[in-house]
């Protein structure tokens, strides 16, 4: 078990997401930054869908109640294992009684704490990704226990190159959405600049640097999914993220690529985001 001694700002358990239930309105969910999450499982030689602890901005204090190996994956993160500073993307052994303290994510938002074999909480609809509608809780709290298999084998040698986010400039790639034509033809969609004003696991609110003119204001409620960029009547853009509802009533002007959705997950409130839209639909 991993015990939550003190929860972080928004600790949840996540995996690749919950597939096959959107027809009855169940969101996909899953790790906000799937790239960082996947890398954690690769480093530990876990199954790709092994569940990991997702930490948002400020992490908490966690007690290992059995031996295992673990890794921290994501942007640079200040963390301590039994009073020793530890690095991201490096596999460490934890003893029974080891205490991990994840202080803060430095140049991003989401970091993943993965253990050998993954956390083995009860699945709901074939996934361990936490969602209020299925588990009755939004985030982990003090005293919660995350079960995992004991692992006393040798420490796992990293056989993957270190993880790099590449360019630091937040340039996101998109293709036109079904209501792209509602954007005024004068819009320079090859490079739209926004400020990230607010975000959570459901969506990102982006304020455009220039007013986005459009023809009509709303559509009949229609299918949406993570990556869809909606244009609201007040001219803001909402980028839907992992916990987004399956339907929405705002024009769907753009669709971010999966890679850009992962990149967006690591952008902090107040930062500038550029979206470049290519018309070629084969782009993705």
């Amino acid at each position, binding site marked *: 078990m991993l015990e939550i001694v003190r929860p972080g700002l928004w600790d949840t358990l996540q995996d690749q997401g919950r597939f096959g239930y959107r027809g009855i309105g*169940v969101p996909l969910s899953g790790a906000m930054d799937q790239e960082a999450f996947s890398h954690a499982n690769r480093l530990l030689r876990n199954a790709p869908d092994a569940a990991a602890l997702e930490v948002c901005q400020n992490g908490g204090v966690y007690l290992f109640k059995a031996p295992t190996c673990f890794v921290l994956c994501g942007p640079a993160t200040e963390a301590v294992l039994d009073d020793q500073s530890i690095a991201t993307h490096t596999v460490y052994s934890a003893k029974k009684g080891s205490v991990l303290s994840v202080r803060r994510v430095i140049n991003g938002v989401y970091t993943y704490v993965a253990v050998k074999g993954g956390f083995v909480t009860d699945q709901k609809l074939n996934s361990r990704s936490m969602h209020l*509608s299925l588990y009755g809780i939004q985030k982990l709290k003090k005293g919660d226990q995350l079960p995992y298999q004991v692992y006393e084998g040798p420490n796992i040698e990293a056989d993957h190159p270190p993880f790099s986010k590449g360019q630091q400039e937040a340039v996101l790639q998109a293709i036109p959405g079904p209501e792209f034509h509602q954007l005024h033809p004068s819009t320079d969609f090859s490079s739209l600049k926004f400020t990230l004003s607010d975000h959570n696991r459901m969506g990102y609110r982006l304020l455009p640097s220039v007013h986005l003119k459009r023809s009509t204001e709303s559509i009949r409620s229609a*299918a949406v999914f993570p990556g869809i960029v909606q244009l609201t009547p007040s001219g803001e853009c909402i980028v839907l993220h992992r916990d987004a509802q399956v*339907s929405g009533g705002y024009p769907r002007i753009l669709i971010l690529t999966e890679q850009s959705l992962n990149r967006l997950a690591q952008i902090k409130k107040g930062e500038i985001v550029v979206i470049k839209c290519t018309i070629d639909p084969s782009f*993705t």
Partner: protein
Amino acid sequence: MKHKFTIYAMGQDSLTVELDGIKPIELKCIASHLKHFFDTDIDVLALNQSLTLFEKNCATRLDELHSFLATLEIEEALTPKRWELPVHYNGHDLEALAEKLKKTPEDLIELHQSHTYTIEGFGFLPGFFYIGSLPKALQIPRKSTPTLRVPKRSVAIAGTQTGIYPIESSGGWYVLGELAFDLFDPDVQPPVFVDVGDEVRFKAISSDKFELLRGQHLKGAQLQERLLCSK
């Protein structure tokens, strides 16, 4: 197919078929044909006379799907299932709504339970479905300011539709009452047993009956059997 339709892709992994003037029961029928076409239990969302399917790289089959649907014959005589849903009409918006609609709460309840409705689509929340169409006298735009906490199992109306909140949520619909059972249960398969095209009747029950039914803790197949009507 006699209905006009258009298909569009959103990225590589989803296709939406929009069908003008299609009935919900026909939508359900086409959804099952889509499963045959893709030869898998594909994830399909039925919503507002459209079907959106989610499947890795399905967008590459857009043209093929178009030809398939163009020649598809929908069965003429489709018989929908009918569910009778027991409701305790004690909702926190009942009195205020009755006043707005210039009716007594009793008339409002009678009006709501005396119609046969149809499930038109899914969306909004896990296990939430849209039930239409309300009689004209009950149609009202959604609240301008949503209620922050609409309780689980609330039976609520807005626009032309009724909805049942599967979980506590914020929402802008007027709450008429509470359903005696949970229709969404992630711990049983399938988590929702009603489908697009099914018919729905609401039946007013007393608070005693409501408590009795709540106490039965029916779920899954037993609950289906309890709610299914023989017409």
